[in-house]
């Protein structure tokens, strides 16, 4: 059934200050719409509960990519097409560039924004595992000012985030402190492109003589929120990747994840695939694959 457009209102504030003011004046009333690749799908299916929408597409303040000595700061309104095309991101944060290329078709990537991907808070979204592995921070802004939180604190529960009702995602900060780390990123879906992932994993590690000095890992589609695999990181740190370590890590993973049964896959299948991807990740990073 087609939605009836006359029942919806959309305001285009035109700049960030006006958008924040509108959000603050009636908290929770105005739903931001950036690329619309989530919101418009809901709307067209008649499943969008909000009637009042606020257009944030193209707000210049949300669309900058800044390279500073200690971070690459990506505006929340940047599209995945822009992220893919950015040289510094491709060079230093290639896992994010790769996942950007997985976010649906070219037409979808031209509209889909980073903030929309995070605020939508799907556990199957493609960018979160890379952001977790890179220890990203997110900058939130409201009329009250800005605050910065580790991305690990962004997702509270299924489709629930730490954003307050008057806040927008201003930017995502990627710290530039991982020179020399190796990375691993993989999406398991029915097809490579344009399919929702069954398991999506990103990791980076500092490896010396086969020993994992340090490692950071994120996994999506295996729990109500994208997971940073901190317990596994601790377990692997300072050790060689061998059958014992892999068995321990797989056990830890099994305890951490809570995959779902749905039309796409069963719980057992997702558990098995998650374990296999983790194993492949450890072996690849250690150079023993």
């Amino acid at each position, binding site marked *: 059934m087609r939605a009836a457009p006359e029942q*919806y209102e959309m305001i285009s504030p035109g700049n960030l200050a006006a958008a924040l003011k509108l959000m603050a004046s009636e908290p929770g009333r105005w739903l931001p719409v950036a690329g619309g690749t989530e919101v418009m799908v809901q709307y067209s299916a008649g499943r969008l509960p909000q009637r009042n929408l606020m*257009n944030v597409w193209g707000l210049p303040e949300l669309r900058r990519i800044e390279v500073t000595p200690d971070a690459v700061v990506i505006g929340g309104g940047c599209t995945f097409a822009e992220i893919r095309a950015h040289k510094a991101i491709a060079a230093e944060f290639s896992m994010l560039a790769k996942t950007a290329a997985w976010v649906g078709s070219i037409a979808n990537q031209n509209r889909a924004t980073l903030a929309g991907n995070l605020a939508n808070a799907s556990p199957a979204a493609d960018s979160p595992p890379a952001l977790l592995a890179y220890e990203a921070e997110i900058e939130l802004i409201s009329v009250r000012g800005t605050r910065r939180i580790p991305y690990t604190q962004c997702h509270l529960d299924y489709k629930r985030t730490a954003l307050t009702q008057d806040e927008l995602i201003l930017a995502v900060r990627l710290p530039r402190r991982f020179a020399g780390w190796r990375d691993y990123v993989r999406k398991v879906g029915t097809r490579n492109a344009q399919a929702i992932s069954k398991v999506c994993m990103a990791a980076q590690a500092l490896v010396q003589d086969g020993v994992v000095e340090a490692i950071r890992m994120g996994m999506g589609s295996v729990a109500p929120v994208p997971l940073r695999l901190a317990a596994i990181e601790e377990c692997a740190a300072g050790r060689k990747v061998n059958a014992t370590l892999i068995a321990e890590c797989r056990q830890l993973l099994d305890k951490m994840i809570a995959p779902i049964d749905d039309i796409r896959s069963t719980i057992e299948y997702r558990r098995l695939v998650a374990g296999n991807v983790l194993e492949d990740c450890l072996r690849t990073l250690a150079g023993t694959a």
Partner: protein
Amino acid sequence: MSLQRIVMTVNGVERTVDAHPMERLLDVLREKLGLTGTKEGCGEGECGACSVLMDGSLVNSCLIPVAQAAHAQIVTIEGLGSPEKLDPVQEAFLHCGGSQCGMCTPGMIMAAKCLLMHNVKPSREEIREGLGGNLCRCTGYMRIFEAVEAAARKQESEAAR
């Protein structure tokens, strides 16, 4: 709720429409501007039948509230060539048999056009990616890929002249 006056440039001509801001660009193009070349397949961003160019990039017009197209430059299939003088991409689809029922064709051609604007000599792999959001139930895609390659060759030889 109230209508808004929206001005946009469609196929090089400035157009003004009174529309509800959440009307889909697709519907405004087809119903208010009479540009029925742009098709609706799925209405949810999966098939690419509604592809148009907005400010130079390929988008699915079924997912765009018309308020977001205000002041934008839109190009639809009608803006590419005319029956008398087809665009090289249109001509290549015709010659290579890249179109059967035609439902996917306008979107497919817009995606191909956009690809060739950014990449004059795409590989098969790049063509697959560029057209990956455009589904076709008829052709099996091979003739479409061949048409894009033919259009690229034609553009190259025209540029050389």
